[in-house]
C-alpha cells in the first residue's frame, strides 16, 4: 500500500507564474504536484503517471482546457478523474454546462482564493484515496475468491483421484472373489458330483455379494462425478423396451422369490444415454427387490404419455415407504429404511433423480392403495423437445 499512497496532482496552465502560485497554495497538502504548461505536455504526463486531480486553466493557446478535458476523458483510465477548471474570463452558464458535459467536477473563478482551492483539491484527493482503497479491497477480495475456488477445486480433485484409486484397489480383490465363486458354480454345473451340493448356495452368496459390493463402489464414484458435474449424458436413439428387458434379465438372476413382468404400449425409440437409463432402472429394480422382502411380482410398464414423453413405471408390492418419509426419498444420503437396517448408502434414488434430471426428465414416487411403491420415470422422447419438465414435488396417491 505504501507506494500507492502517493497522490499526484497535475496542474496545467500556459503561464508558469500561475503554476507557481498554485504550487504555493497547495504545499500544505500531502500530494505530489506536477506542472505542465501546454495541453500536449499534460497529455504526455497523463499517459505515464497516475493522476488524481487535474487542475487546469480553461483558456490556453493551441489546446484549451475544454479540448484537453475531452481528450483526457477519452482515456478509459481517466474517465472518472477529477478536473478542476480555473477560468479568468467570465463564465456564462453555457460554458459551465459545456464543462460538466465533459465530466468536469468543479470550477474555480479567478482570482483563486487559496483556501477554496485547497479545500476543493482536498475533497477530490480524499475521494481518490477512498476509491483506490475500495478498488484495492475489491481486487484483494477477487484474488482471494479465485484462490479459495482453486483450493476447493484442488481438494475436490484430490478426493476424486483418491476415490478412483480406492475403487480400483477395492475392485481388484472383489474381481478375484467373484471369479472364484463363478468357477465353483461352473464346476458344480459341469460335474455335479465333484463337489458337495451345499457349496452351490454359498458360492452364489459370494458371487452376489461381490456384485453388490461393486455396485456400492460404483455408487460412491457416481456421486463424486455427479457432484462435480462431470457426468455427461450421451443420447442415442434407444429401444427402451429392449433395454428394460435386458436389465430385468440381469435382475432376475439375483432373486428367485420375485417375478418380473414387462409390458409396453409403445415401440418408440427414445433418445437417452442407454448406460445411464439402465442404471436408473437397475437401481429402481434393486430397490423393488430389497423392499419386497416377502417376494412377489415386480411390474415394469413402459407407456407413451404423449408423442413427446415416455414413462417407465416400476411397481412393487413390498413394504412401501412411510408417509412422513416420502418427501425426502430423492435426497442425497437419505435412508428411508435406516432403522430396519435394509438401506444401502442412501444414494440410489438420488443418483436416479440426478440422471433423470440430466435427461430433462422427471422421477416421482406413487404409493398405491393396495401397498407397495410405484416409481414413475418420465423422459422426453427427443433431445430437441428439451423443455425442462415441471418437477412434481412430493408424492401422489
Amino acid at each position: 500500500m505504501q507506494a500507492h499512497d502517493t497522490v499526484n496532482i497535475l496542474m496545467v496552465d500556459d503561464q508558469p507564474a500561475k503554476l507557481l502560485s498554485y504550487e504555493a497554495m497547495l504545499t500544505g497538502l500531502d500530494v505530489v504536484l506536477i506542472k505542465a504548461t501546454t495541453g500536449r505536455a499534460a497529455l504526455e504526463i497523463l499517459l505515464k503517471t497516475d493522476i488524481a486531480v487535474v487542475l487546469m486553466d480553461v483558456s490556453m493557446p493551441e489546446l484549451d482546457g475544454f479540448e484537453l478535458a475531452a481528450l483526457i476523458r477519452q482515456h478509459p483510465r481517466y474517465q472518472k478523474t477529477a478536473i478542476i477548471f480555473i477560468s479568468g474570463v467570465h463564465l456564462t452558464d453555457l460554458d459551465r454546462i459545456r464543462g460538466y458535459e465533459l465530466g468536469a467536477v468543479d470550477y474555480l473563478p479567478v482570482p483563486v482564493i487559496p483556501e477554496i482551492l485547497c479545500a476543493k483539491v482536498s475533497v477530490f484527493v480524499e475521494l481518490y484515496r477512498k476509491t483506490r482503497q475500495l478498488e484495492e479491497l475489491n481486487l484483494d477480495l477477487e484474488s482471494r475468491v479465485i484462490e479459495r475456488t482453486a483450493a476447493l477445486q484442488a481438494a475436490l480433485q484430490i478426493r476424486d483421484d483418491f476415490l478412483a484409486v480406492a475403487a480400483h484397489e477395492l475392485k481388484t480383490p472383489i474381481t478375484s472373489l467373484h471369479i472364484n465363486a463363478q468357477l465353483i458354480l461352473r464346476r458344480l454345473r459341469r460335474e455335479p458330483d465333484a463337489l458337495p451340493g451345499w457349496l452351490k448356495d454359498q458360492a452364489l452368496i459370494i458371487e452376489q455379494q461381490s456384485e453388490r459390493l461393486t455396485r456400492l463402489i460404483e455408487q460412491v464414484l457416481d456421486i463424486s462425478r455427479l457432484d462435480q458435474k462431470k457426468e455427461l449424458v450421451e443420447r442415442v436413439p434407444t429401444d427402451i423396451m429392449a433395454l428394460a428387458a435386458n436389465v430385468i434379465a440381469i435382475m432376475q438372476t439375483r432373486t428367485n422369490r420375485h417375478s418380473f413382468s414387462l409390458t409396453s404400449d409403445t415401440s418408440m425409440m427414445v433418445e437417452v444415454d442407454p448406460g445411464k437409463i439402465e442404471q436408473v432402472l437397475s437401481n429402481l429394480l434393486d430397490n423393488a427387490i430389497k423392499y419386497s422382502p416377502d417376494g412377489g411380482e415386480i411390474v415394469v410398464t413402459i407407456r407413451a404419455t404423449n408423442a413427446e414423453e415416455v414413462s417407465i413405471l416400476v411397481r412393487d408390492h413390498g413394504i412401501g415407504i412411510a408417509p412422513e418419509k416420502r418427501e425426502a426419498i430423492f435426497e442425497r444420503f437419505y435412508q428411508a429404511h435406516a432403522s430396519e437396517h435394509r438401506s444401502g448408502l442412501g444414494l440410489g434414488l438420488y443418483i436416479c433423480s440426478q440422471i433423470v434430471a440430466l435427461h430433462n426428465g422427471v422421477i416421482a414416487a406413487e404409493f398405491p392403495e393396495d401397498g407397495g411403491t410405484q416409481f414413475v420415470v418420465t423422459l422426453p422422447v427427443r433431445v430437441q423437445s428439451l423443455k425442462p419438465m415441471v418437477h412434481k414435488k412430493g408424492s401422489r396417491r
Partner: protein
Amino acid sequence: MTQPPILVVDDEITIASSVAELLHDEGYAVITAANGVEALECVARHSPKLIILDMKMPVMDGRAFAAAYRAQPGPQAPLIVMTAAQDATHSASEIQAQAVLAKPFAIDRLLELVHLYYPSPDRDGDGYIEPRV
C-alpha cells in the same frame, strides 16, 4: 504346446491364475504374465493368438505394453482388456483393443469374447483368425 496359447496379463496373481484355470478348462493353452515386460517376453516366445490384458500394472502397464506390441511387425493377436478403471471403454479404444470387460465381470461374458476371437480348439479346430486392428 502344440496350439498357440492365450496370454493372460494381470499383476493380481489370483485373477491371472483363475482366468488361466477357466480358459485351460475350456481346452485352451494358457500362459500368464504379471506385467507388460513379462508379457512382451511371452509374446516373443509363444506368439499368443489372443491376449487378455489388465491395464493398471507395475513395471509396464497395459497401455505401454499395447503400444510396444502394436509397434511390432507381424500378425497381431486381438486384445481383450479387463480393467477395474473407470475409463475402461476409453482406454480400450485408445489401445485399439477388440473388446473390454469391466472388472468384476461374468466369466460367461469372458468366455463369449474368447470364443469370438479365438474359436475354441475343441470345437472349431485351430485356424488362426485375422485380428481386427
